[in-house]
């Protein structure tokens, strides 16, 4: 498009010709043509001078383009920055660490001794009732989500109701069930707590409390439990601290329970699945104050929690020392452990708005974004896992049903699947579709399980699947292909069509003949140890 080809001219000629041009684009075109062509520094300067003259460039702006191809320009630059590796990593997020209140209270059969060193109460401004305190009521932290009570909150209220009714029968004292909760506009939920068995519901409203936040939730809970605050909001009670306190063993509940119990100077039995109240006789001198003397503690909350194996239970007690009391006796409760009581909209109860100043500083951590994850299924800790693979392809829904039948035949079994199923395009019918999701995938990128019995039907045994299950005690594979890799690491290999074998296996389990060998032999397959 450029009329003038600078290559055809000497710089002097060019300078002269340029005088007649005052179109910026054309001048730039000439500059480029020069750069692409003879690329003379003097010519560049001429064009720039002209550009300046017509006002298109400020003096001094423009060409540094005198550099010839291949010319080293070292020394012309300044070192501007340090190693970008660090710089570009972004600013350090200010960590929201709290003082030294993090320490979780001990979870031993007895509350930790106060050795005066490790105990987290040293910095407490407010330690009340170390001895001869007044305690009453069972408090229940009612966690909410999306403007509703969590199911576990209702379950705990139900259990608390039954426990405190029994308490009244046993001891003649009417102590109450106190629900406590917080959020943005949760008065309605507090009322809801009454209908599920609470006598009192204490709530704190603040728009900043809409989602769980570690610091303010802890502060408010402790404040409530100690009975601090205005007279109007506390005159319903006349004790120092709650006698018992329950939290849900959810992510937030676990977090809160540890902090609140430390703040209240007590202990915690985490992840409990049963509760009862009884007296307890102990002879431990730490507790009795005198060797050889037995002492009976009244109204002790017995908190049962499953061991890691899932087969045994420990019962945890939270007992006072002489001169040093541990209340509230607290536990976090595994969701699903108890049944709620039937909702009764006519139940009477007292709803109390709690009152306190919330410090700005407690809200340093801000929730800017959140996402709800799918609930997820935990396949670990079961006695039996029945895993289905793409061998169900001929009738995915039917295969899934057969797998579920076998699961049902065992007392403690769950259904797992291979990734091959998760990512398939199989069209499962509605009632079994939920079993085809990633949350049930076993393997390298799914869950790792080690049940007593692992039944793999129509699973080829790819290495990525194997790593998720080969610690299982007994592995039974059902496969039409005797060369399937899973045969290398199964204890029993049943050669056969899973659509025929699974029902027979289910029958055998139901009729009590869980003779694997018999099943294996019976189907014409072979045993392969």
């Amino acid at each position, binding site marked *: 498009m450029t009329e003038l080809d600078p290559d055809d001219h000497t710089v002097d000629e060019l300078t002269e010709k340029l005088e007649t041009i005052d179109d910026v684009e054309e001048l730039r075109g000439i500059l480029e043509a020069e750069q692409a062509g003879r690329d003379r520094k003097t010519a560049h300067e001429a064009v720039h001078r002209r550009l300046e003259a017509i006002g298109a460039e400020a003096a001094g702006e423009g060409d540094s*383009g005198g550099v010839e191809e*291949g010319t080293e320009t070292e020394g012309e*630059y300044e070192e501007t920055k340090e190693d*970008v590796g660090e710089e*570009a990593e972004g600013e350090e997020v200010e960590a929201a660490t709290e003082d030294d209140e993090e320490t979780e209270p001990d979870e031993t059969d007895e509350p930790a001794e106060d050795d005066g060193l490790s105990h987290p109460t040293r910095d407490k401004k407010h330690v009340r009732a170390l001895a001869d305190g007044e305690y009453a009521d069972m408090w229940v932290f009612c966690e909410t989500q999306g403007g509703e009570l969590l199911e576990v909150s209702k379950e705990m209220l139900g259990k608390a109701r039954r426990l405190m009714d029994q308490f009244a029968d046993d001891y003649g004292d009417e102590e109450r069930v106190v629900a406590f909760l917080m959020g943005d506009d949760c008065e309605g939920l507090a009322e809801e707590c009454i209908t599920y068995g609470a006598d009192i519901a204490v709530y704190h409203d603040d728009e900043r409390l809409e989602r769980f936040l570690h610091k303010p939730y802890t502060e408010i809970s402790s404040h409530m439990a100690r009975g601090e605050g205005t007279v109007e909001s506390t005159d319903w009670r006349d004790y120092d601290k709650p006698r018992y306190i329950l939290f849900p063993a959810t992510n937030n509940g676990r977090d809160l329970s540890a902090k609140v119990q430390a703040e209240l100077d007590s202990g915690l039995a985490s992840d409990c699945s049963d509760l009862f109240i009884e007296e307890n006789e102990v002879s431990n001198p730490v507790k009795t104050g005198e060797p050889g003397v037995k002492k009976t503690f009244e109204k002790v909350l017995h908190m049962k929690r499953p061991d890691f194996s899932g087969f045994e239970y420990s019962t945890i007690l939270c007992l006072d020392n002489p001169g040093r009391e541990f209340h509230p006796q607290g536990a976090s409760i595994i969701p699903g452990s108890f049944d709620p009581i039937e909702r009764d909209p006519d139940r009477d109860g007292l709803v109390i708005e709690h009152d306190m100043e919330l410090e700005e500083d407690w809200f340093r951590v801000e929730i800017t974004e959140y996402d709800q994850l799918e609930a997820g299924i935990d396949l670990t800790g079961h006695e039996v896992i029945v895993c289905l693979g*793409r061998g169900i392809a001929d009738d995915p829904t039917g295969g899934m049903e057969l797998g579920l039948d076998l699961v049902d035949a065992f007392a403690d079994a769950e259904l797992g699947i291979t990734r091959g199923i998760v990512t*398939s395009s199989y069209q499962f019918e509605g009632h079994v579709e939920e079993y085809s999701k990633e949350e049930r995938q076993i393997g390298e990128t799914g869950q790792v399980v080690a049940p007593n019995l692992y039944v793999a039907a129509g699973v080829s045994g790819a290495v*990525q699947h194997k790593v998720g299950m080969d610690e299982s005690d007994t592995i039974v594979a059902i496969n039409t292909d005797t060369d399937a890799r899973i045969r290398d690491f199964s204890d029993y290999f049943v050669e056969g069509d899973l659509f025929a074998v699974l029902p027979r296996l289910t029958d055998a389990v139901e009729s009590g003949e869980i003779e694997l060998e018999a099943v294996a032999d019976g189907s014409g397959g072979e045993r392969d140890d």
Partner: protein
Amino acid sequence: MTEYEHYEAVVVGCGPGGAAAAARLADHGVETLVLERGTEAGSKNVSGGLIYAEESAPYTIDDLFEGFREEAGERPVTDYHIHNIAENSVKTYDLSDLHEDDTDWCDAVLRRKMDSWLERRVHEKTSETGGGVLTNVRVNGLLRDGGEIVGVTCDELDPIKADLIVGADGVNSELARDAGLMDWEEPDEWFQGVKAVVDMEPDVIDDRFDIEPDEGAAHLFSGDLFEDVRGGGFLYTNEDSLSIGTVFHLDSLVEQEAEPHELLDALLTHPLLAQWVRDDYHEREYAAKLVPDSKKVAHEEPYRDRLVLVGDAAGQMQAQGPIIKGMNHAVTAGALAADAFVVTRGNTDSEAVGRRYAQMLEKSGTMDKLRPRRYEISRTLGERDAVTNVVERVLESPVGSVAIGNPIANRLLKRAYNSPFLVSMLPDTKTGYVTLPSIIGEEHGRSIHWENEIEPPTLEERIGDLTYDTDIGNPHIELRDESVEASGAAVHACPVSAEDFGGGCYRSETVATNGSEETLVSLDTQPCIECGTCAVVADTDWEHPRGGKGVEYREG
């Protein structure tokens, strides 16, 4: 617009193209940031493995990186042959003349070793001018201001602005796609390369290939070994391993419904291979990647605003007949882009650099190698089906075979294969790849009856041996249309999928829906080796995984 971090130059990708661009920019004193999605450069890259230093090229890799050959290379190629195969009959020609034409030197390389070495050198150089290399960062698009490209956006970092953006992100360049300079639509614009790296002790290599420790061999294969699929095979010697692979026209793979891993196995198990590999076959790594066909897609104007594309991203991958040259052109292009930037720096028109770069590609003769004019002519004649069919029929007729089968023809053929001019004219038809070589094999070849003992691993084993860092719950490819018509081709063409294999990425499944049966395609991206094939042959939303995620090649 928000204030973003700014660099004079940002280079996306640290393969040979990006490394050359960054090194040259740093040599010019330009503040240069290099972003690479792999955990280390090379962990995502595959090539067959011969890097050429052409005498006619303005830049070669050792110009830019001193010590390259000693530190990053494997063996120099001193022995070069092509084998035309018709079943068990093989005719071998020495290709040394062709190979040496315009070649200063040529070394076999493995990409993990080579690219990671380059990355370290690039980091040293660029950190001296205020930049550096950041790995585990995936650039996911272009930053625009008022419609003009001014920088890049990443999965891991805030957007970054730059005066120059070098898209050296290889084949399936997301930058080229974002800029509208490339699309991933036509299978006939691409090749798919598949390769196995095979263990072999250095002295065993010397012995079996009859070479010295500082020598290397290259063998090419064509003919009916791969049935009617257009393409060929290669075998190169590394220091202590072999690179054995195949390169096929993607459209031909799709048409023939061929399984890439089976084509590789066909080469591996051919009796001819028995002279080099015995029953001690141990595959270290299975890998695959698309390569663009520069004859069709090398972009004449590979720039937009401040963005310039180099290497595979610009389609600069030359495959003509048996020659595969991509790395060297990527190096040339990267260095030229850097020079173009320095020369036009300060020019207020943001496209000045791009225009300058395109001119340099042209003037340096690079463009003519990538898109030879004579190919444009022969393509219109030779590639059209009608013509092909006629030639095919003549060749297959007794007369045709005789014509090729006489001794004079033999001499002519050797000459023809060694003529860069003729080779570049071999149009990409079945005639050039299959018919001609197999007739040559049949008529001139000698029969080979060696017992091949190689047992290639299954696809399942190959996937199992690869290293993945799976981005769980975050698949990088999404199937838009799961019908067989739209996406069924991927079940065959994906190098880690196969008909009746449940463990691959793409699987065809017959599913019953309300009484009727339907075949659908399903996708699992976990075994994906990021070759790019399904971006072209299936209906997908295709991206690379986040930085550091996905497959990690150890050899490459």
